[in-house]
């Protein structure tokens, strides 16, 4: 009785859930930077991100270069050293962050909009973005920090498995490079390498500016112009080469002194503009993308107690990102877990989801829409994605409709065409795995 009542309850309310997403304002600065703005006047603060197409996919023959360039920006400008920069942000309570993955290099600022704090934060942020000096002493130290980070990776089975997965999945493609690079390459980098990388990719026509906060349009326009004014206009980054699909299955065992075996399995997946995005996204939500209620979690955790968590996800990138499955289980159960994982995937490809599963997934995704845009920081993340991948401005507004339009047949066909359970790359990192193989 209890449960049935709630099914009814949901149906009744679902029509009332059409809360529109934030209204996105978009323009291009004089020097070709693309700007995405959502005013949020409620709190006296602003979140800003400047995103460059300058991730590790641009490392060419020097893995680690993109990441180190990003890490060096707040280590010194032509007029400030690292201490000056850190104080200038901290003294007004502003927070600066830099990160660099395969596609994006992201520089974020969170500051109060109170005039004095705002001016000082924006002034410093602008200098960091447009006048980095790559000083040798800071370079030497950051180089050591990156090398220590690589050492830390060697004591993490998950990090080892992820590295092996990307290297083998992407082979000669730029995505095979880990953003952290490798010790040999990082040791050989020079400040001149970073300066050259900066000069090529940190240019306004290769930049997206995201602003969410208590500014009006005029103020936002002024900030966007100011942030990018010191950048050369330059050229957008080159189109990345297409990803070649794997031709055959591959199994990699790595011995590691851990009580668990980390399993990472997958193949190449989809790009951000893939026409199959929605059927694959909704289908994977059912298979392994919805946490405790996914099919994989049910099979591996709920029914068998084999793992604390298992997931699968498509990581859409400029070119085809991975479709990845991952879990950890005690060493002696690694083979069993892998078998259950593969069988669940195979069954899903063969039979697709049930109508009931699809309905539940749609209810979860569309009913949770408001949660995904309920804070400035979440909206800013979406704007960065929309801007960087050049998605339509109504991406958020039309998201629920596109999810609703997916049918069981769409999912089944898309998985049959796009996911091949017979050509999987599987990486196992753990204790006794090699002995039982």
């Amino acid at each position, binding site marked *: 009785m209890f449960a049935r009542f*709630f099914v009814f309850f949901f149906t009744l309310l679902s029509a009332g*859930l059409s809360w529109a997403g934030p209204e996105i304002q978009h323009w291009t600065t004089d020097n070709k930077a693309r700007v995405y703005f959502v005013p949020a006047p409620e709190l006296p*603060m602003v979140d800003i991100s400047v995103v460059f197409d300058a991730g590790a996919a641009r490392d060419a023959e020097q893995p680690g270069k993109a990441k180190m360039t990003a890490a060096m920006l*707040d280590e010194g400008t032509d007029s400030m050293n690292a201490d000056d920069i850190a104080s200038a942000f901290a*003294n007004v309570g502003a927070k600066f962050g830099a990160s660099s993955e395969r596609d994006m290099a992201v520089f974020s600022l969170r500051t109060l909009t109170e005039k004095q704090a705002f001016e000082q934060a924006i002034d410093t942020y602008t200098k960091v973005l447009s006048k980095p000096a790559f000083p040798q002493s800071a370079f030497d130290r950051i180089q050591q920090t990156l090398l220590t980070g690589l050492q830390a990776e060697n*004591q993490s089975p998950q990090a080892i498995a992820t590295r092996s997965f990307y290297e083998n999945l992407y082979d000669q493609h730029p995505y095979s490079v880990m953003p952290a690079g490798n010790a040999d390459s990082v040791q050989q980098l020079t400040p001149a390498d970073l300066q050259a990388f900066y000069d090529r990719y940190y240019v306004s026509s290769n930049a997206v500016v995201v602003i969410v906060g208590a500014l009006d349009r005029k103020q936002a326009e002024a900030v966007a112009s100011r942030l990018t004014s010191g950048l050369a206009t330059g050229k957008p980054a080159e189109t990345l080469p297409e990803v070649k699909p794997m031709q055959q299955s591959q199994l990699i065992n790595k011995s590691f002194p851990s009580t*668990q075996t980390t399993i990472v399995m997958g193949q190449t997946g989809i790009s951000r503009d893939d026409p199959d995005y929605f059927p694959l996204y909704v289908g994977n939500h059912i298979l392994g993308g919805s946490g405790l209620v996914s099919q994989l979690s049910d099979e591996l955790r709920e029914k068998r107690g084999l793992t604390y968590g298992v997931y699968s996800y498509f990581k859409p990138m400029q070119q085809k990102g991975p479709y990845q499955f991952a879990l950890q289980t005690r060493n002696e159960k690694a083979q069993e877990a892998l078998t259950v994982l593969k069988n669940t995937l195979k069954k899903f490809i063969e039979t697709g989801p049930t109508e009931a599963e699809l309905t539940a997934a749609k209810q979860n995704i569309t009913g*949770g829409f408001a949660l995904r845009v309920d804070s400035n920081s979440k909206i800013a993340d979406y704007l960065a994605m929309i801007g960087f991948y050049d998605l339509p401005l109504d991406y958020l507004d039309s998201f629920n409709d596109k999810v609703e339009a997916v049918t069981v047949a769409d999912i089944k066909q898309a998985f049959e065409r796009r996911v091949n359970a017979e050509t999987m790359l599987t990486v196992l990192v753990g204790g006794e795995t090699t002995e039982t193989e």
Partner: protein
Amino acid sequence: MLKLKNLAWLALLLPGIVQAQVSEFELDNGLKLIVKEDHRAPVVVSQIWYKVGSSYEYNGITGISHVLEHMMFKGTENLEPNEFSQIIARNGGEQNAFTGRDYTAYFQKLHKDRLEVSFKHEADRMRNLIIEPAELLKERDVVAEERRMRTEDNPQSLLREHFNAAAFMSSPYDHPIIGWMSDIQHYEADDLREWYQMWYAPNNATVVVAGDVEPKAVLELAKQYFGPLKPEIIAELKPRVEVAQRGIREIKVKAPAELPYLMMGWKVPGVTTVAEKNSWEPYALEVLAGILDGGNSARFAKELVREQQVATSIGAGNSLFSRLKDLFLVAGTPANGKTVDDLEVAVREQLERLKQTPVSSEELDRVKAQVVAETVYEKDSVFYQAMQIGMLETIGLDWMVGEQYVDNIKAVTAEQVQAVANKYFVDDSLTIAELVPLPLDGSRPVSNAGDAHVR
């Protein structure tokens, strides 16, 4: 050039944004309800906090609060195992739970129209849980996997666990939240039922709702679903006061790893444990933590990482809000070519300086500016706002203590920072732990041998 002369502008900024709209209610059965309005988006966060966690446990059943948290998803008199999660998912919700030393909490994030779903099923599982032995056996395995992932195969977590066991003797903060592996593998259904009976009742719970809601409507909904639940007699906790430490404690932990790691912890009072006349001390320690580790311009980053290059990364943390007496922690990784001993010497020099010389007004202003800004930033997260209220109430403080945080920090003087440095950073209450890396050559780890005995 980039220094602010005073904080006048920050004081002007504060009124108007810190005045949160919070309503507080108590039902006849003792359930506490706190509602915080935030109308920026049509969402609601609902959290239910129980006064129970690993510090309520004793040896032999360590981790039982955490495994009970897992079992709370395994069915009631009205729901099948995992059905709770399915219902929340169908309603477009996100949900989970977490267990700490001093609390166990469950939460849902939902569209504002769906709060009823949360209340209905949280009320159900507060009193009607079913512990099936077969489900428990599976969940013991799941939690054992969780422990392997979080602790057994993570050298820094292993160090932290041994460190706590060395730092605390009679305090229940000596054991890990997730429990010792041997205890995890021996819970029986009756152990869980007893624990559930003892702590899961309306008069041992606080419901916190934050988001686009009207307090009166939330109260009515709470009365409807939680109102009929019967209260329990909740046992009074034994004080379990930590015995006074009589001298420095130093331990080494060997584990397969690449990098050494240093942890140092001094016993300090928090807001709940400080003597009333010294109520400023925890806040002075909080400022002291900000002086050492308040971002990239603080002393640790500036001097230990950038100038002396003795640490790759290093952090400091105060324990302001713990139910029992806790630790001020410093932990870090030595830089390439430096040892744990080098890092310890450098940390001690930093503390010595805090004892000898008052911190500058610029540094003090910087810490205070960051705290003020952070209180604005925190308001971007509805979840965090609810979290703060629930945590404070559950360790026995009024949620208003959170609202007074900024004022208490702003009142701290350089002399007070110096005073707490001298009073608390003494070797007699210090515990030091060093991670000694063992080779990662794939040979059988030490921990596997221990594991085999408990299966």
